[in-house]
């Protein structure tokens, strides 16, 4: 693998986005926003702690799914961008596996999570570890029994969709949701890191 993760993070963490004269940030084929992470965390945590037990799986599914769609479309925008072509493109020897490793370096550089792939069976299974992530901030003391990294789960699945789910589909009807992700460890749960296992979706 020729992916130089350190170099990608150093380079792409310095990429800044700025609003146009309409106050919008069109980039990577989407409109980008840059909000305090607390906004996303607070909505997810208040929602999942206020719905009753029967509705919790549905609420969690929808939170993960929001990130899954976001990760799919924005992820595609990133891996087809000029920034990617100039920084990551020359490092790719073995696609799509190197693309996946590069994507998690970008994921880290953009502040979504300090995460890397620790196991990859092409097309079948990926294990990702996150050593720091904003979703863990929902628990500041002690440990919760409820893993809270909905965004990471969704984006991990999305990246596997992009790598192995078939050609990119802007409508999201064909190649999206071909993988699913389970969080098996979490900093918010008292573990040293978050761990995420991605496998083909049961319904795919």
């Amino acid at each position, binding site marked *: 693998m020729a992916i130089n993760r350190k170099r990608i993070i150093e380079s792409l963490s310095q990429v800044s986005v700025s609003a146009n004269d309409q106050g*919008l940030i069109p980039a990577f084929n989407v409109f980008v926003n840059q909000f305090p992470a607390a906004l996303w965390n607070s909505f997810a945590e208040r929602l999942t702690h206020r719905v009753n037990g029967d509705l919790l799986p549905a609420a969690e599914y929808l939170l993960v799914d929001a990130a899954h769609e976001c990760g799919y479309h924005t992820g595609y925008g990133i891996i087809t961008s000029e920034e990617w072509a100039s920084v990551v493109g020359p490092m790719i020897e073995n696609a799509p596996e190197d693309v996946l490793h590069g994507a998690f370096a970008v994921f880290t550089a953009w502040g979504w999570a300090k995460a890397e792939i620790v196991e990859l069976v092409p097309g079948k299974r990926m294990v990702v570890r996150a050593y720091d992530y904003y979703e863990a901030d929902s628990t500041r003391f002690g440990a919760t029994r409820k893993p809270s990294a909905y965004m990471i789960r969704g984006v991990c699945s999305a990246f596997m969709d992009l790598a192995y789910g078939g050609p990119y589909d802007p409508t999201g009807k064909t190649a999206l949701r071909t993988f699913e992700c389970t969080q098996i460890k979490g900093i918010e749960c008292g573990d040293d890191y978050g761990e995420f296992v991605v496998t083909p979706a049961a319904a795919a």
Partner: protein
Amino acid sequence: MAETNHHSFQMEQKFEPRSCRHLVDGRTYVLHCHHYAGLYTQLAEDCGVLDGKKLLAEVAEDTFYDVLSDHFQKYGVARIEDRLAAGEQYYRITGMGLLKVACAGPDYGEIALPSSHIDAGWLKKWGKSGKPVNHITRGFLAALFAAAFNRPRRSYTVTETASIASGAPESRFVVVTR
């Protein structure tokens, strides 16, 4: 009302290499896209059991109240017109769109939104909506007015009276003290 376009919004941004977080004035910020914001908004719309629209607006109010209050204190932004201008600039910097405060007092305000991230994203993703959907901006405005007029959070009710997502040329909001 005085001109409000002379305040220059300041903030300290840095990438923290150990945690790999982007910090703005010490807070973690993160980039997301209109799909994410749109699906959170859709989730709020669909979550009637506990009034998801109110929940999303309150989360936005709490988040931005902290940001704006801290900013006013840290940078010594004291005049009402400067605080409102700072709010307009912050709104633009975050990619939320263009926000113009037409009038503002401690009990009432009118705001126009010629462009909006939430509405543009909604239209791009789903097309025209039958109702206003910009709950994040409702929360932002409640926060801006509370912080600007030194009131606690939940001091204002914000109503979206016209909506780009619903076909209006610009969105409009009315802010009224509770």
